[in-house]
């Protein structure tokens, strides 16, 4: 199976997935209580305006008609206008997405830099002190809700020490101020993600270290460090990256919480605020963009994986 075929088949597989997701998102939001046409007017709501808005937004149409209409728009990348600001949805979503990407990429890269050494050390010396400490640290990281660790950091670094901003996005891109406002949110995400990734790497390393080719490498007199670096890690790192890709789902889910703790104007915060404002088109667009983002990340990970390990391609050619 050629690489291009593999990529194409993945995209084809994704179509029903995204389609299913549009159904779920639409159905969930359709049963939202509260009439957005009235809520948008606040306390000064009047029946004529409400009736006008209901007609304008097509809220009086049957659900399946509205779904097909919306889907047709989505296919043409027209997500409609925000019910709240009356501005087109897509540019707003994209600018927030960019802010989230900065946060997410830094968190993932930073997380890998933390997780890889910890995972390797605890796999090479299982049940040692380091393994124990890293296991406990990982479990603490896993168990700390991200909003709490975020708040603790705010208290320590912003309130007590006063060296980092409490929240918000300061300055412009590539300035010290922007960098400073990134430190806390990025660290908050890393604490959660890195902990899990380290454990995954440990377990895939553990499997590798017991393999015969590692024993052979040791037997021919290679130093343990070289065996790890040249034989064990390259083999263990592939499943690790797949897991990192899968964890993007959690990182992106966690973004809603992290971004709301730090008032970071990303897609998570937009999603959350739009839910609050009953801004259907915005919520739908955010949800789809997030899902598409997760799909693309997973695809990128899988392509790298398939590129490096041809067995994957053949397996997928034979069916699931």
């Amino acid at each position, binding site marked *: 199976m050629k690489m291009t075929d593999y990529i194409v088949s993945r995209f084809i597989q994704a179509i029903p997935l995204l389609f299913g997701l549009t159904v779920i998102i639409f159905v969930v939001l359709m049963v939202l209580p509260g009439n957005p046409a009235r809520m948008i007017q606040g306390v000064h709501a009047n029946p004529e305006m409400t009736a006008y808005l209901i007609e304008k937004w097509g809220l009086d149409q049957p659900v399946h008609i509205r779904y097909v209409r919306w889907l047709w728009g989505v296919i043409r990348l027209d997500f409609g206008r925000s019910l709240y600001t009356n501005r087109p949805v897509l540019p707003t979503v994209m600018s927030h997405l960019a802010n989230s990407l900065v946060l997410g990429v830094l968190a993932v890269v930073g997380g890998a830099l933390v997780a890889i050494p910890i995972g390797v050390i605890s796999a090479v010396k299982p049940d040692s002190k380091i393994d124990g400490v890293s296991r406990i640290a990982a479990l603490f990281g896993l168990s700390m809700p991200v909003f709490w660790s975020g708040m603790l950091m705010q208290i320590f670094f912003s309130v007590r020490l006063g060296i980092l901003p409490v929240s918000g996005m300061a300055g412009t891109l590539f300035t010290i101020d922007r960098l400073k406002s990134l430190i806390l949110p990025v660290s908050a995400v890393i604490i959660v993600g890195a902990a899990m990734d380290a454990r995954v790497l440990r*377990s895939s390393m553990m499997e590798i270290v017991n393999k015969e080719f590692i024993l052979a490498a040791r037997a021919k007199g290679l130093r343990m460090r070289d065996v790890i670096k040249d034989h064990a890690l390259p083999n263990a790192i592939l499943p690790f990256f797949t897991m990192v890709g899968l964890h993007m789902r959690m990182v992106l889910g966690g973004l809603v919480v992290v971004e709301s703790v730090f008032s970071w104007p990303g897609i998570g915060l937009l999603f959350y605020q739009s839910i609050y404002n009953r801004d259907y088109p915005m919520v739908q667009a955010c949800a789809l963009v997030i899902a598409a983002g997760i799909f693309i990340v997973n695809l990128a990970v899988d392509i790298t994986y398939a590129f490096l390990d041809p067995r994957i391609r053949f397996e997928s050619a034979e069916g699931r």
Partner: protein
Amino acid sequence: MMGQLRKILAQMAEGFQNFASRRIALLGLCLILVVVVVGVFAPILAPYDPTKLVSTPLLAPSREHLLGTDQLGRDVFSRVVYGARVSLIVGISAQLLSAVIGVPAGLIAGYYGGRVDDVVMRIVDVFMSFPYILLALMIASVLGPGLQNVILALGITGWTTMCRIARVQALSLREGTFVESSRCIGASDLRILAHHILPNSMAPILVVLTLGMATAITGEASLSFLGMGIKPPQPSWGGILAESRGYLFQSTTLPLFPGVAIMVAVLGFNLVGDGLRDALDPRLRRRAL
């Protein structure tokens, strides 16, 4: 039937023997026990009504108010104690709901295979392609805040893990000779599923359930933190944290304790879940992740 029962008991006993030998898992069990005791005996342990204003706002911890008071002058200790109840109720109920949806779906998918399996797994894929907390947030916002609705939101979104583990079990168990023999004596599919496959799948389901408790408790805290969970003034750990956000500069102790409580509960269930996994089936490690 007796033989079946004895087998499961033996499996559990052996599992718990290994389990007990793991000190970390025992620590987890202690943490869970603390949370359960606090939750069950909340009315006895809490010195004040968790929703009543009893003192000056934002007091530091003292003898009268062990953990201080919050922004309205309510006793934080009493609120945290009652929060344990909410977390446990939500965790258990949401996981049971997930199991009620996920386990039958998974067993049926794995047992029948083919088209049925494809359909169920595609639905699981759709759910898994989206962060569960975002879906829960959407559902919770649709239903409005409140205990029941949080349980519903977390239960509906959390069934996929359960479904996958049940499917994998059914997939391997259906090839077993005991399934073949009961089919030979004319047992119906339902009987085979309920009496043979389900009991033999209990161990991994139990592991997923325990680990899922940790996820559900975090989920409840997150929803409440975002204002889509437990309705104030009912105390919940996430809610207390959310309320304390506006007072970071006035009181640094206020956000400390509900967070510790969440961590204790989540850590407890994670540790026990991991211990059970290692004890009952080490091969699960990779699959459950």
